[in-house]
């Protein structure tokens, strides 16, 4: 059984305008997303701004309430749990945020920040908590003597490590990494990525790794899902995705990623125009307005998410 099984997750936001708050329509931020996450693996979720990947993360943890679907964690549907049961599950299912500057309370010491999950869920004594915090700090590469300092005394990369230590405090099964390295410098990114990989091997963690940088996602993930306008358009292993991308959007995305090699002459598939507004998504296949291979069927019918073999799934009429 998969550790995490998401089925047909949907989230729409109502759009209101005017004094009387007339309902203008809905923004379908997440429109039927489904995937599984197995133990010990990393599933990458990649897409550009507005594709809904951040909303998916919030919905999984019910930080935002989804409009529909199922989120099965170890067999139980999180969306049907009551508040108290959900609170207990949160010990197993953690998240690391993107912004190291706003994800830590500036008025709490590092020790208090890391100890918060322990205080919420366990009844350990103060001494035990102190020991556990020291252990966690060492695990993520920080000096335990600095536990009494405040977040503003640390650099961005170090703050991100604090956030990781906090997420690890209760030995979770799954960690959602929501753009954990996007706000960091290149050399610090490498440190944090390596840390995440090492922790995974050491603790048997499973990651849902969300990012817009395809290179980073491909590097750290075992399997990758590509999102566009609230839907998953392709899902495959990292190798398959890189060597054999099927969906035209994935192909364009791959060709657009700048390669740090001046010798390579990149043949870029340049997409026309911008991402359509999620308030007014195109009919049929959401990508058809920008697709270089668009055909008549694409504008009329939504494509089915089909399995092409060995787990490689695509939502495209032409594949």
């Amino acid at each position, binding site marked *: 059984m998969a550790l995490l099984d998401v089925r047909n997750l949907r989230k729409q936001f109502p759009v209101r305008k005017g004094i009387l708050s007339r309902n203008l329509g809905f923004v379908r931020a997440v429109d039927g997303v489904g995937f599984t996450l197995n133990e010990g693996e990393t599933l990458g979720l990649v897409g550009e701004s507005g594709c809904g990947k951040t909303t998916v993360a919030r919905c999984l943890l019910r930080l935002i309430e989804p409009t529909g679907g199922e989120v099965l964690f170890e067999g139980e549907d999180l969306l049907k749990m009551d508040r108290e049961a959900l609170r207990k599950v949160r010990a197993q299912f953690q998240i690391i945020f993107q912004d190291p500057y706003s994800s830590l309370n500036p008025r709490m010491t590092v020790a208090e920040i890391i100890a918060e999950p322990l205080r919420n869920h366990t009844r350990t004594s103060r001494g035990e908590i102190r020991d556990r915090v020291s252990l966690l700090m060492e695990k993520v590469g920080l000096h335990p003597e600095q536990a009494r300092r405040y977040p503003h005394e640390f650099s961005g990369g170090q703050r991100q490590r604090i956030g990781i230590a906090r997420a690890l405090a209760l030995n979770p099964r799954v960690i959602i990494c929501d753009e954990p390295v996007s706000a960091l*410098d290149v*050399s*610090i990114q490498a440190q944090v990525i*390596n840390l995440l990989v090492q922790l995974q091997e050491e603790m048997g963690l499973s990651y849902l790794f969300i990012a817009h940088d395809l290179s*980073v996602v491909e590097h750290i993930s075992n399997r990758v899902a590509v999102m566009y306008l609230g839907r998953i358009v392709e899902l495959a292993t990292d190798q398959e995705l890189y060597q054999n991308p099927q969906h035209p959007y994935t192909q364009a995305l791959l060709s657009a990623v*700048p390669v740090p090699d001046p010798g390579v002459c*990149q043949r870029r598939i340049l997409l026309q125009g*911008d991402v359509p507004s999620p308030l007014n998504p195109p009919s049929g296949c959401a990508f058809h307005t920008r697709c270089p291979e668009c055909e008549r069927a694409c504008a009329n019918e939504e494509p089915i998410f089909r399995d092409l073999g060995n787990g490689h799934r695509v939502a495209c009429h032409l594949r």
Partner: protein
Amino acid sequence: MRQDSLLSIRDLRTQFHTYEGIVTAVDRVSLDVYRGETLGVVGESGCGKTVTALSILRLLPSPPAEIQGEILFEGTNILDLDPDEMRRIRGNAISMIFQEPMTSLNPVLTIGEQISEAIRIHQGVTRQEAWRRAVEMLQMVQIPSPNARAHEYPHQLSGGMRQRAMIAMALSCHPQLLLADEPTTALDVTIQAQIVDLMQRLKDEFEASIVLITHNLGVIAGMAKRVVVMYTGKVVEQAQVKDLFREPLHPYTQGLLGSIPWMGRKLATGRRLLQEIPGIVPSPLEMPDGCRFHPRCSRAMEICGKEEPPLVQPDDGRKVLCWLWA
């Protein structure tokens, strides 16, 4: 100085007087930009690349900033110019585009008004003429229905459109030099590709030179001919782009190149771990003695901690600031 040198920076030093001390953001930087080329400036936050660009255009309030050295633009030292002369250069001969298009565009003026403002000031034409040229520029940066768009406000455009509008504004007076400060960082990858493509075409069409400032080595590889690597306010390496990627000389450059994940790298190298540069960039008030990079350098020698390294020229067109090559 070569004949075709457009911009020549010699020993530029930009310091800020703060309550806690003097911060030297740019520390004796020298570089050249030749006609018709794209020079890449690479570095992480705090390396001084943005301050260098702002120093060229003298956009830093002085005090607290203090600029020393020479910046020769077509033979004239622009640090000596008076404010009026400087104003004639900005937006006209030297232009700049910034990282965040949303905050660099005036939210209460339409795109058309902002672009035509620059044209009117520098080229002294009528309002109608300036507007016509502004719309022409929007056309050149491939904004669809430029006539209609010119009447729109920045918040009505998408990120990619805003960046194009800013490029249009920067190129509206046909500058010889364009300073591009992280022009693609805030954009999605597919839009980034469009902008890179656009910048290259326009550069050829306008015969301009570009100083491309970014931390993204992939964009550098695609656009620049020569590259300068900066660290804590100094130039640590300078080379042709092919040489830099094939054979980086400075340990910092080596570390940078080793630490970026690129598509297919995991498959090619078989390793899940990236190469790391340990530690963090030192605070400007607590710079290490000797070579500023030595505490993080895996190849540091004893002399590295004592004396600052000399700028060595191992090859024609290559420069390194490192004891390993001295």
